[in-house]
């Protein structure tokens, strides 16, 4: 899932300067799962912002709403009625950054602000702890590495093994993190595939990554 975390209240208050009537919109997708932007978080955030503004002597009206997902135009259209009827000057979106962008594209006369920082594609390590597992490079080759991703999980994204800083099975850059190459080596050993690690890998094809503007996936069978 996409992991996000809430921006600091101070930063959100700076965004809200000049606005007195705002709609805070949550998302029931990924950011609910990682406790960043669901119904409960929207409630807590709205209260915190109201209290802070009251203390500043500039009270703010914040209404709350949480969409099933903000990455679908159909759900974004649910905002049409409240925006038309309540006269909000701004929408603050508590979704990954697809949400505020969809809202901005749909409604050209309302200011849109992100309440969250979109962090990465990851999974849950333990309650309240998430880590990155995928960099969405668009060309998955983890079968070559025992099913583990060195592109994402090695600090240098190396394809031939660890750098010199990795001894002790921990990453030099983030000592609390296992060196992924130690895990890969162990896995390959268990699988009897050490030979696969000896092979020279060609320079990676990054063309499916950050190299040509917006990436698209088209499923002909699903298009209307």
């Amino acid at each position, binding site marked *: 899932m996409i992991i996000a975390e809430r921006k600091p209240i101070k930063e959100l208050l700076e965004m809200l300067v000049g606005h007195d009537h705002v709609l805070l919109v949550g998302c029931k997708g990924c950011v609910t799962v990682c406790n960043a932007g669901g119904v409960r978080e929207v409630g807590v955030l709205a209260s915190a912002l109201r209290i802070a503004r009251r203390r500043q002597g500039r009270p703010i009206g914040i209404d709350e709403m949480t969409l099933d997902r903000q990455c679908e135009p159909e759900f974004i259209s649910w905002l049409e009625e409240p925006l038309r009827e309540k006269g909000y000057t701004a929408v603050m979106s508590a979704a990954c950054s697809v949400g505020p962008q969809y809202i901005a594209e749909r409604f050209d006369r309302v200011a849109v602000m992100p309440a969250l920082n979109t962090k990465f594609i990851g999974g849950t390590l333990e309650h309240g702890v998430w880590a990155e597992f995928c960099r969405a490079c668009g060309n998955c080759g983890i079968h070559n590495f025992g099913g583990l991703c060195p592109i994402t999980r090695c*600090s*240098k*994204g*190396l*394809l*031939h*093994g*660890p*750098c*010199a*800083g*990795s*001894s*002790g*099975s*921990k990453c*030099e*850059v983030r000592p609390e993190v296992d060196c992924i*190459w*130690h895990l890969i*080596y162990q896995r390959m050993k268990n699988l009897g595939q*050490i030979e696969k*690690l*000896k092979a*020279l*890998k*060609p*320079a*990676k094809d*990054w063309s499916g990554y950050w190299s040509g503007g917006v990436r698209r996936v088209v499923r002909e069978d699903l298009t209307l």
Partner: protein
Amino acid sequence: MKAGSNLERLLRSGQFTITAEFVPPATGDRGLIERQARYFKGHVDAVNVADNMGAVVGTASWAVSRALLDLGLEPIMSLVTRDRNRIALQSDLLGASLLGIRNVFCTTGEHQKFGDHPEALNVYDIDSVQLVNAVRGLSGSGKLLGGAVCDKAGPFFVGAAANPFGDPADFMILRLGQKVRAGADFIQSQPVFDPEKFGHWVRLAREEGLIEKCFILATVMPLRSAREARAIHEKRRGVEISQDIMTRLEGVPEPEQAREGLRICAEQMQALKEMKGVQGVHIMSAGREEVIPELIKESGLETARARD
């Protein structure tokens, strides 16, 4: 002979070879580079010119390499994959060829977190093995990584790093094999403070048939003090300083520890010269180039340049 550099000539002729590292300061002042160069001239066979060592901005390794050539020194130009993508790296290699640089040393480079721009965006488009392969392509068939053919660059004598002290040990040998197969001609190791462990790695490399395919230079590092030794041991991963060395340094008063560190380093150089499969030493002085002449004198080793 492949590249025809002095370093290649010495190693191929079986002579024990001494290289040393130069970490260029961030300067546009040629005079400063020239003043630093006097610590190498006549003392070492070739000079590794670091490429933004420790992710700290320094003057471009190609430019400093050219300046050293002008001074009659032989440079080994370092290239790290941290800061440039394959287009820039290959472009720099062609430029190096144009400037008459014949030795190239390929590494990934320390992560920018440890440098003076920790917030920089890194590149790591290719890794060190792939960079070695790129140099070989340019140098041999005049082929770029993307497949296009260009005028041959170099030819280059290609170096790479190896970590004999990493674990698991058999993975470290596998890594060496990758670099040799990618086209590395010579290897400079991580600093050696445990000759026994290093000797074991060399033996493993020999068993794998890798020693015949590349030249091994063992890196040595003169320690300044017991405090520095402890800091390196604790903070610099991949470098372990043995208790013997620590005890020796701690056994002399602090003002004399630098001298003792130099003596230890000189002894290590002598011991490494006797080690089968090791064909040279590489001095990593961590920015203290001024100790190099004294260190070599203390070791009793002579460089081929000095012999000539």
